[in-house]
């Protein structure tokens, strides 16, 4: 495979520019490329060739990491369509969503202080379901409807849910210590 940094990550892995993705196929293509550009193959190459192979390997790895995670894949796809999710700067979210987040946090706080690991596990499982539903909605919004502005909101919601699921995991780990 020839080196071309102008190809986006989907083109790089020869995949359709869609949210719903054949992860197995992507991993296969990734492995093939990595085999071709492994630094060991360039031991006798020039400094320039070695450096280029290194940069290409980095680019390909970034592509894999970006496309593997559903939220980062959606964020990347939206950026290709000219939509920014403004996760650092825009603090406005639907009020009912934020209210729901508040009550989830309260439930986790209570469960943690009551050392109720079962409750935390249950909340974690509920959250996983909500996240899974959000990810499937992303597929619908991006691939089926091309409704990118609604997909931006969905990505932003999933950011909260992902970081919240890390909070619950940490609470469980701290209680289990």
């Amino acid at each position, binding site marked *: 495979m020839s080196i071309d940094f102008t190809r986006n990550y989907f083109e790089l892995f020869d995949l359709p520019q869609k949210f719903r993705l054949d992860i197995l196929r992507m991993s296969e293509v990734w492995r093939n490329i990595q085999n071709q550009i492994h630094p060991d193959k360039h031991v006798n190459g020039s400094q320039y060739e070695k450096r280029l192979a290194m940069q290409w390997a980095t680019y390909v790895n970034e592509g894999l990491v970006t496309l593997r995670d559903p939220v980062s894949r959606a964020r990347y796809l939206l950026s290709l369509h000219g939509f920014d999710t403004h*996760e650092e700067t825009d603090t406005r979210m639907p*009020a009912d969503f934020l209210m729901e987040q508040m009550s989830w946090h309260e439930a986790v706080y209570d469960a943690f202080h009551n050392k109720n690991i079962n409750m935390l596990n249950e909340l974690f499982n509920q959250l996983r379901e909500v996240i899974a539903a959000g990810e499937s909605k992303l597929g619908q919004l991006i691939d089926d409807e091309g409704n990118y502005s609604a997909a931006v909101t969905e990505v932003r919601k999933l950011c909260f849910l992902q970081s919240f699921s890390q909070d619950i995991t940490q609470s469980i780990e701290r209680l289990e210590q």
Partner: protein
Amino acid sequence: MAYSDKVLEHYENPRNVGSFDKDETGVATGMVGAPACGDVMKLQIKVNDKGIIEDARFKTYGCGSAIASSSLVTEWVKGKTLDEAMTIRNTQIAEELALPPVKIHCSILAEDAIKAAIEDYRIKNESLPQVSAE
């Protein structure tokens, strides 16, 4: 990462934690969130009939800097008019708490929470008949 003394002070002794009844006269609520870190902030103000914020409450789920930023602004807004409270900038919050660059978004969250609460107050009250101050 080490927190500044001022952040720790607010974090350990947060001011004005809690809630007002959102339907009480003069109470307005601002809710905001930062997708990048998952922090959620609720800030409430209680405005008297002279248009002065006489009390404030907050509830924040987030890191120490987010809690300190919201605690600080609840102190700052008390005694201010709505227009004065609108002028609070995140840079002032960040400076007061000596927030590092990676925590600037916590101060943005607090500024936006105040603005959202004031906006909520104005929306709630614009439908009321205007009374001229004699």
